[in-house]
């Protein structure tokens, strides 16, 4: 089997005295679609940040194989007070892409998410769904191997949610690795192939999506699915 892109071994993370992650073992392979689910405070978002490298582990190790490019999409994207196109260009500039190449890639990325006509508009004047699509374009322009998504559609209306989901589905179909934290179980079923269930910072289940929802999940996860644990 191919070497995992990212591997966590006995990983823990603490916010001061609070252990947000404990003894996490996880392997992420190229092209996987993994959803992290669990109640509020279970450690999903922290795990995404550790996987990205934004947070250094407090214990255990994070191994990355083959220097994959990582990009992350947040629940509320931070867009600069610039045009939509300039927002993508800034991200490309940080990635070392300049000049004509940057112009071409930003135009391509905006077209990809259906925002070509909005390229010159101020990013913050766009609707919530358009802003999230712009954030997706910004991430996609970086041509990441792994796209990490932290509740990417939680603050969107159903229509905008469907648009973003369709784009994510397309990206995953083309081989991009998707790692997402989500409260929306329908979305998990639609987008993920593997579900990692977390409770109080521990991984209690790591199952194919079908098995997770068809009764193979441990009792704690089944309580969560029945809505008897807080979200």
């Amino acid at each position, binding site marked *: 089997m191919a070497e995992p892109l990212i591997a966590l071994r006995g990983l823990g993370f603490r916010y001061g005295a609070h252990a947000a992650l404990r003894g996490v073992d996880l392997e992420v392979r190229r092209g996987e679609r993994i959803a992290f689910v669990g109640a509020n405070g279970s450690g999903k978002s922290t795990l995404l*940040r550790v996987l*990205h490298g*934004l947070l250094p582990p407090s214990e255990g190790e994070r191994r990355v194989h083959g220097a994959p490019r*990582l*990009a*992350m999409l*947040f629940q509320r*994207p*931070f867009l*600069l*007070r*610039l045009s939509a196109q300039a927002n993508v260009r*800034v*991200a490309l500039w*940080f*990635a070392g892409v300049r000049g004509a190449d940057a112009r071409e890639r930003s135009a391509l990325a905006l077209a990809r998410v259906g925002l070509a006509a909005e390229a010159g508009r*101020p*990013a*913050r*004047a*766009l609707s919530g769904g358009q802003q999230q699509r712009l954030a997706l374009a*910004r991430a996609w322009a*970086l041509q990441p191997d792994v796209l990490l998504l932290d509740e990417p559609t939680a603050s969107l209306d159903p229509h905008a949610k469907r648009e973003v989901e369709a784009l994510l589905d397309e990206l995953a179909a083309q081989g991009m690795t998707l790692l997402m934290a989500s409260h929306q179980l329908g979305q998990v079923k639609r987008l993920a192939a593997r579900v990692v269930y977390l409770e109080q910072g521990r991984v209690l289940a790591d199952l194919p999506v079908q098995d997770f929802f068809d009764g193979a999940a441990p009792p704690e996860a089944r309580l969560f699915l029945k809505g008897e644990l807080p979200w």
Partner: protein
Amino acid sequence: MDPFLESLRTAWALIVHADAQLLQVVGLSLGVSGTACLLAAGFGLAAGAALAVLRFPGRRGVLVLLNTLLALPSVVVGLVVYLLLSRSGPFGEWGLLFTPGAMVIAQTILVVPVVAALTREAVAATWKANGEQLLSLGAGRGAAAALLLWDERLTVLTVLLAAFGRAISEVGAVMIVGGNILGHTRVMTTAIALETSKGDLPLALALGVVLLSVVLALNLLIAAVRWWSTHHHGGAGARPAEVATAGAAHG
């Protein structure tokens, strides 16, 4: 006649007749305070943005010191600059005492903490909420600080206008290091102080009206900037009411 009405009439006459002495005093006030704010911006913006995003030992102490310096009495600044620039002081050979240059130095020292502290507030709020998103894009902290400074440019402009309001309305420092020399270092606030001590209250009040007019113009400029930001940047414009400009003269 009521002294207030008389002062208003005097102020109006000075303005409409473009009194040469008044123009010279107003011009020097604007020049000294404007230069001081430009110099303070160079250091204060960089220091404020850096303090917002960087973490280093002793940072809290620096923040306490910076916030304390917000209340720096202008006469103390004037006294320190006077001692530094006086003939027997370490920089006495520069010959700056009782020149506009000395006044610029004093006002720069006075407003650097204002620029740095308010810039830090503005950038830190954005950094706290969104810093990790910039880091996730591959930005280093220095680049992120510069980017946030640019992104908060409308707030930064408000900060600079507030600093200008503080500078142009202070009297203690420029009085001490400038000497209030007619035609050379006399600015609006020192002229007001002088006319008051001479008992020419209408003229002093008239100058006060002119000074207030300048501050009013600044506030209108801030309001215009905020309106513009609201209508051109999706509503997230220059935010803090707490950085609205200074009003009356600072001792």
